[in-house]
C-alpha cells in the first residue's frame, strides 16, 4: 500500500518538473555552501595536525652558543645520543652591492618524519653535491641572476620569502667559509623517550623553545568559526528555498492527499510516504551538493591557505582531499534540512480532516494575526540578542547574538513589509495603484520565504562588507602610525647590539631601541617594551585613550601604557596600578591599539625597563629614523658592516606592503562567499515567483477581464519584484549595520581582544541595492514573459473552471 501511496505522491513531480528542479537545486545549493565551508575547515585542521605532528607536538627547541658559533661535532654528538637534531648555518651572501640572507640546512637530518606539508620542489642529488644548488623566491632569483657566474646554480622556490637563499649546509659552509662551525641546532623535543637531557649533553648552549602551534590554533579557531557561521547562514538561506518548495508541493497535492485518505489509506502510510520522499530528495540533493561543495572549496582553498599562512603562519596544503568528516556532514545537513522543511507538511497531512477541501489555497493566507505573531517573535529575538552580551561571553555568545539578530529580522520581515504596504495603500489613489498594492500584500505570504532569504543575504553582505572595510581603514591607519620608523634592525647579541647602535647614531636621524622583557602584565603573560622619549612616539603611537601627559610620565618612569587586549581583559581604568610581575606596579597612563597580537603587552620608559628587568632584557632590536631616500643605502651599509641575522634589517615599506597583501587575501574568501549567498537568494526569489505565477491566474484573470492588458500586468509584475527588493534592501540596511557592529565590537573583542571603530560606506550599500533590484528583476523576468505570452483562452478558462 505504501508503494501505491508513494507512487501517487511522486507522480506530482512528474507533472511539475520545474518545481522538482527548484527543490533539488535549492537543497543542493544549500548543502554545497555548507559542505564547501566544512571541507575548507577540515582541510585546514588536518594540515595543522600534520604540521604539529611533524614538529613533534608543535614545539621546537633551538640551541645557540652565547659566543656565536657551535662546532658541528656538538650536533653530531647529540645525534649519536639519539636526539632528533639538525644543524643550521645562517649568514649573508654579499654580492657586489646587494646582500642576501643565506641559510644552510642539512636535509638528511632536517626531520626524520615522513610528513610532507605543501608541495616539495624537485632538487635532485645536485643539491647535496658540489657545487650545490641555491633555492630562492622567484624575485630573489632575478636579483641573484646578475651574479650567476660566481654562484652555484639557482632554482626558484615559491615557498621561500624574498631576499632569502636556501641551500645545503655544505654549500652554505663553502660560500660563507664556515669550516666546521654552525650557528644553530634545531631539535624536535618529543621524538624519542629516555634520552640524556640536553642540559647534560650541551650545558654551554642557550636553549630557546618555541611553541607556536597552540597560538595558531587559538587564532585560527576564530577564523574557522567565522567561516562556519557563514556556511550556516548560507545553508539557512538555501533552506528557505527548500521550505518554500516543499510547502508549495503540499498545497498542490492537497487534493491528492484527500483522495488517498478517502480511498482508505491510513494516515501513517501517508506520513511514511512523505518522509521517504523527503529522505530520497535529501540523498540525491546531498550527493549533488557535496560534489558542488567540493568544487567550490577547491576553488577557494588556495585563497584560504594563503590567508592562513600569511595571517597566522599556519601552513595549509592548497589541495583538497576528500575527507569523511565533511562529506558526511554535508549529507547529514541535507537530510536534516529536507526533514525539517517537510516537518510542517507532514504535520498538516497527519492532522488534515478527512473531508477537508481539496482546493488549493494560496498556501498560507495573509492574516493580521499571523503578522502580529511574527512581529512578536521577531521582537523577542531582538530582545534576546540585546541580552546575550550581558548574560554570556566568548566567541560563541557573539555568534549566538548574530543568530538571534538575523533570525529575528528574517521572521519580522513579512510583518514589516505588510505594515509598509498597508500604509502605502492608504496614501495612494487610483484603482490600478490600489489593486497593485493590495495584490502585492496578497502575495506576501508566498514570497515571504524568498524575501527573507534575500534579506539575510543582503544583511550579511552589508554587515561583513562594513566590517571588512572598517577593518581595512583602521588597519591601514594603524600600520602608518605604528610603523613610523623607516628601518627595523635585529642584532645577534648584546655586543653587536651596542656596536650597531653606535654605528647608527652617527648615520641616522634617531635610533629608537626596541628592547623588551617577558613579564606578567596585570596577571597575563606578555611582553614589556622600553622606549626612549622621542617625537616618533608622541606624534605617531596609536593611543585609544590616554592622560594628556602620558608620554611625559612614561619618560619619567612614572607610568605604563598597555595594549588594548590586556586593558580589556583586565578591565583597567586610567590611573589604576598595573602589576608588572613580582609585585611591581605602575599607574596606567594610556592604552594603545595592537592588532594582530594575541598577547598582553606594555610600554615603559627605557630606563625603567632596564632597571626592573635587569637580567632578562633582550636588547637586540632598534627602530631607525632616517630620510626614506637614504634607507636603502643605510641597509646596505649595515649589512656590509655587521654579520646580522637573516631577517636582520627590514624596511617599513615592505612590512606594510606585506601586511596589506595578507589582509586583502584574508577577506577574498569572505567576498566570494558573499556573492554565492546572494546568488542563492536570487534563485530563491526566482523559484518563488515562478511557482506563484502558476497559482495566481485566478487573481489576475478578473483584472485582465476589466481591461488591463497582459503586457501591462507583466510590467506590474516586474515593478512589484523591484519594489519588494527595494523594501527588503531597506530592511536589510539596519540589520546589516547592527551585524557589522556586533562583529566589530562583540565578536572581534571576544576572539582577538580588540575593538574596531565602525565606518560607514554608503556607496557600497547603493551598489548592493542595484544588485538586489537586478536580481529581483531577473528572477521576475521569466514569469512575466510567460504572462505576456499567455493566450487569452487561459485567462477565460479561469472563469469557466475555477469560479
Amino acid at each position, binding site marked *: 500500500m505504501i508503494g501505491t501511496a508513494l507512487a501517487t505522491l511522486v507522480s506530482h513531480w512528474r507533472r511539475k518538473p520545474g518545481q522538482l528542479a527548484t527543490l533539488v537545486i535549492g537543497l543542493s545549493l544549500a548543502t554545497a555552501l555548507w559542505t564547501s565551508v566544512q571541507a575548507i575547515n577540515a582541510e585546514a585542521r588536518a594540515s595543522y595536525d600534520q604540521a604539529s605532528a611533524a614538529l613533534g607536538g608543535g614545539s621546537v627547541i633551538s640551541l645557540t652558543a652565547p659566543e656565536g658559533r657551535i662546532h*658541528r661535532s656538538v650536533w653530531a654528538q647529540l645525534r649519536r645520543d639519539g636526539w632528533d637534531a639538525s644543524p643550521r648555518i645562517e649568514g649573508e651572501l654579499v654580492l657586489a652591492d646587494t646582500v642576501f640572507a643565506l641559510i644552510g640546512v642539512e636535509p638528511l637530518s632536517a626531520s*626524520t618524519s*615522513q610528513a610532507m606539508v605543501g608541495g616539495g620542489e624537485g632538487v635532485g642529488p645536485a643539491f647535496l653535491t658540489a657545487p650545490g644548488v641555491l633555492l630562492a623566491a622567484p624575485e630573489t632569483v632575478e636579483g641573484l641572476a646578475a651574479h650567476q657566474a660566481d654562484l652555484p646554480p639557482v632554482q626558484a622556490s615559491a615557498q621561500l620569502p624574498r631576499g632569502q637563499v636556501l641551500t645545503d649546509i655544505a654549500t652554505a659552509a663553502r660560500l660563507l667559509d664556515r669550516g666546521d662551525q654552525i650557528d644553530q641546532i634545531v631539535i624536535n623535543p618529543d621524538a*624519542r623517550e629516555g634520552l640524556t637531557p640536553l642540559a647534560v649533553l650541551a650545558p654551554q648552549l642557550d636553549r630557546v623553545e618555541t611553541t607556536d602551534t597552540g597560538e595558531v590554533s587559538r587564532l585560527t579557531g576564530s577564523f574557522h568559526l567565522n567561516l562556519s557561521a557563514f556556511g550556516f547562514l548560507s545553508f539557512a538561506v538555501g533552506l528557505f528555498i527548500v521550505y518554500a518548495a516543499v510547502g508549495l508541493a503540499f498545497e498542490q497535492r492537497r487534493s491528492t492527499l484527500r483522495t488517498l485518505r478517502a480511498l482508505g489509506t491510513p494516515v501513517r502510510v501517508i506520513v511514511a510516504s512523505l518522509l521517504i520522499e523527503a529522505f530520497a530528495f535529501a540523498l540525491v540533493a546531498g550527493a549533488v551538493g557535496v560534489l558542488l561543495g567540493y568544487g567550490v572549496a577547491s576553488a577557494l582553498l588556495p585563497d584560504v591557505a594563503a590567508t592562513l599562512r600569511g595571517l597566522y603562519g599556519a601552513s595549509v596544503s592548497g589541495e583538497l582531499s576528500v575527507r569523511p568528516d565533511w562529506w558526511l556532514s554535508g549529507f547529514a545537513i541535507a537530510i536534516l534540512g529536507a526533514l525539517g522543511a517537510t516537518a510542517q507538511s507532514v504535520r498538516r497531512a497527519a492532522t488534515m480532516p478527512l473531508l477537508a477541501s481539496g482546493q488549493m489555497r494560496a498556501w498560507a493566507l495573509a492574516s493580521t494575526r499571523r503578522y502580529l505573531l511574527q512581529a512578536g517573535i521577531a521582537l523577542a529575538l531582538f530582545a534576546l540578542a540585546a541580552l546575550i552580551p550581558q548574560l554570556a561571553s566568548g566567541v560563541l555568545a557573539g555568534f549566538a547574538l548574530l543568530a538571534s539578530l538575523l533570525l529575528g529580522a528574517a521572521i519580522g520581515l513579512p510583518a514589516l513589509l505588510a505594515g509598509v504596504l498597508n500604509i502605502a495603500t492608504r496614501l495612494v489613489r487610483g484603482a490600478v495603484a490600489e489593486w497593485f498594492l493590495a495584490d502585492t500584500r496578497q502575495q506576501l505570504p508566498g514570497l515571504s520565504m524568498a524575501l527573507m532569504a534575500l534579506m539575510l543575504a543582503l544583511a550579511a553582505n552589508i554587515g561583513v562588507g562594513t566590517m571588512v572595510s572598517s577593518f581595512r581603514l583602521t588597519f591601514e591607519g594603524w600600520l602608518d602610525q605604528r610603523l613610523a620608523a623607516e628601518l627595523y634592525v635585529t642584532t645577534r647579541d648584546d655586543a653587536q647590539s651596542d656596536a650597531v647602535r653606535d654605528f647608527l647614531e652617527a648615520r641616522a636621524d634617531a635610533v629608537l631601541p626596541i628592547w623588551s622583557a617577558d613579564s606578567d602584565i596585570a596577571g597575563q603573560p606578555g611582553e614589556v617594551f622600553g622606549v626612549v622619549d622621542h617625537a616618533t612616539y608622541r606624534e605617531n603611537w596609536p593611543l585609544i585613550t590616554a592622560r594628556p601627559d602620558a608620554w611625559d610620565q612614561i619618560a619619567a618612569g612614572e607610568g605604563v601604557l598597555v595594549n588594548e587586549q590586556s586593558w580589556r581583559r583586565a578591565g583597567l581604568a586610567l590611573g589604576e596600578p598595573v602589576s608588572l610581575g613580582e609585585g611591581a606596579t605602575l599607574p596606567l597612563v594610556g592604552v594603545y591599539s595592537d592588532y594582530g597580537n594575541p598577547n598582553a603587552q606594555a610600554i615603559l620608559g627605557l630606563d625603567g625597563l632596564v632597571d626592573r628587568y635587569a637580567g632578562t632584557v633582550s636588547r637586540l632590536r632598534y627602530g631607525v629614523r632616517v630620510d626614506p631616500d637614504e634607507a636603502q643605502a643605510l641597509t646596505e651599509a649595515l649589512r656590509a658592516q655587521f654579520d646580522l641575522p637573516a631577517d636582520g634589517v627590514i624596511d617599513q615599506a615592505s612590512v606594510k606592503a606585506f601586511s596589506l597583501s595578507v589582509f586583502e587575501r584574508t577577506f577574498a574568501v569572505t567576498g566570494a562567499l558573499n556573492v554565492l549567498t546572494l546568488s542563492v537568494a536570487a534563485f530563491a526569489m526566482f523559484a518563488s515567483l515562478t511557482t506563484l505565477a502558476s497559482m495566481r491566474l485566478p487573481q489576475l484573470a478578473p483584472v485582465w477581464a476589466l481591461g488591463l492588458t497582459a503586457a501591462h500586468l507583466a510590467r506590474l509584475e516586474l515593478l512589484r519584484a523591484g519594489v519588494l527588493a527595494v523594501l527588503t534592501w531597506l530592511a536589510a540596511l539596519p540589520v546589516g549595520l547592527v551585524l557589522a557592529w556586533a562583529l566589530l565590537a562583540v565578536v572581534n573583542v571576544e576572539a582577538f581582544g580588540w575593538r574596531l571603530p565602525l565606518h560607514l560606506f554608503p556607496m557600497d550599500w547603493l551598489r548592493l541595492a542595484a544588485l538586489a533590484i537586478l536580481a529581483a528583476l531577473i528572477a521576475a523576468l521569466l514569469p512575466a514573459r510567460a504572462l505576456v505570452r499567455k493566450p487569452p483562452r487561459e485567462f477565460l478558462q479561469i472563469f469557466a473552471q475555477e469560479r
Partner: protein
Amino acid sequence: MVRVGLLLVCLWSLCVGPAHTQGFAGLGTSADGFAAPTPDPVFVFPADHGPHPAYRIEWWYLTAVLEGEDGTPYGVQWTLFRNALEPHDGEGWQTPQLWMGHAGLTTPETHYADERLARGGVGVAGVEAAPFSAFIDEWSLESAPERLSEGEDALSALNVRARGDAFAYALELNATGPLVFHGADGFSVKSAEGQASYYYSQPFYEVEGVLELPSGPVTVSGQAWLDREYSSQPLSENQLGWDWVSLHLDSGAKLMGFQLRQTDGEVYTSASWITEQGVLTAFEDGALTMTALETARVAGRAVPVRWRVQLPARDLDVEVEAINAQSWMDTRFAYWEGPVRIRGSHGGRGYLEMTGYETDASSETAAP
C-alpha cells in the same frame, strides 16, 4: 624555518629515490665514474671491513634468527647502507657519501621497522675498520675487543644495538667459524651479462641478548649472519628485484641462495653451500631453484611468503615459510625482510629477503 625543513624531507627520496623503471632502489642504473668489481679480488682485513668510497653502494647487513626462553621465534635485522653520489670521499660537510640505517624486529604477530638517514664525514654515520665500528645516530654495530682472542678476525665478536619508536634491541654476537667468500673467492656474479659485486659473509654467529618490546624485555638467543657486499651496479637493466635466503640448517651447514627476477620472466640464480667447518662451494646459475608456493597480501601487494628451495647437488629440498607474513620494511625503499622456518629434507631457521614486488601505483605512494 620549519616548513623549509619539511620541504627538504623529500630531498633524499629525490636523490636516490625508488626507481620505477630500473630495478629496485636505483640499483640498475649505470655507474659512470665509479669503480667496478673485477675477478680474483684480494681482500685485506681489517681494512676491507671498512667503507670503499669509490664504489657506489655498500652494505653491512646483519640478520639474526632468535628464540625467547619460552620458545617464541623472533627475527632481528640491522643494516647500514652506504650510497655514494660521487665516487670519492670528502672533507666534513662536503662528502658525497650518504648513509641509511634500517632496523627490523619481527615477532610472530608484529613486525617493527625504523630507518635513519645521515651524511658521512661529520661523525653522525659511517664505518671504521679498526677497531671495527659501524654506526648511524645511536645505532651501532661495534667490535667487542674484550671477547676477541689474539689474531681473530675483527668481526668475530660484535655488539649490535638499535631502537625505533616501539622497539629496541641489544645483542652480543660471537662467531664460531671463519669468514666465507661467495662466488669466485668473493667475486659474485649477478647476471648473465657479467654484473658483479664483492660479497663475503660471517654466517657463524651465536647470539645472546635482549629485545625491548612494548610488552616488556625479552631475553633471546640464536644465530646470526652478517653479509658484506659492495659494488657499483649489481643489477642488470632487465632485472626487477631479487629473492634471497640465508638458511641455518640443523645439520650445522648453511645455505645462501638468491634468484634475480628478469623482465622476461626468467631468473638468474646463485647459491653458496657452506659446511659446518666453513668450506664454501659456489653454485652457478641454474643449480638452485626457488619456487613460490603461496603469496600473501602485504602492504597492498602480493608477496610470496612460502617457497620451495631446491639444491639437488646437495640433496636439499625444503619448504621455507615466513614466521610473520607481514614482515614488511615500510621504509623509503620498502621491501620484505623476515625470519623463516625450514622444513623438508633439512630443518632449521633462516632469513628471507624479497625486493621489487611493489606495483607502480604502490611504489608511488611508498615514496615520501
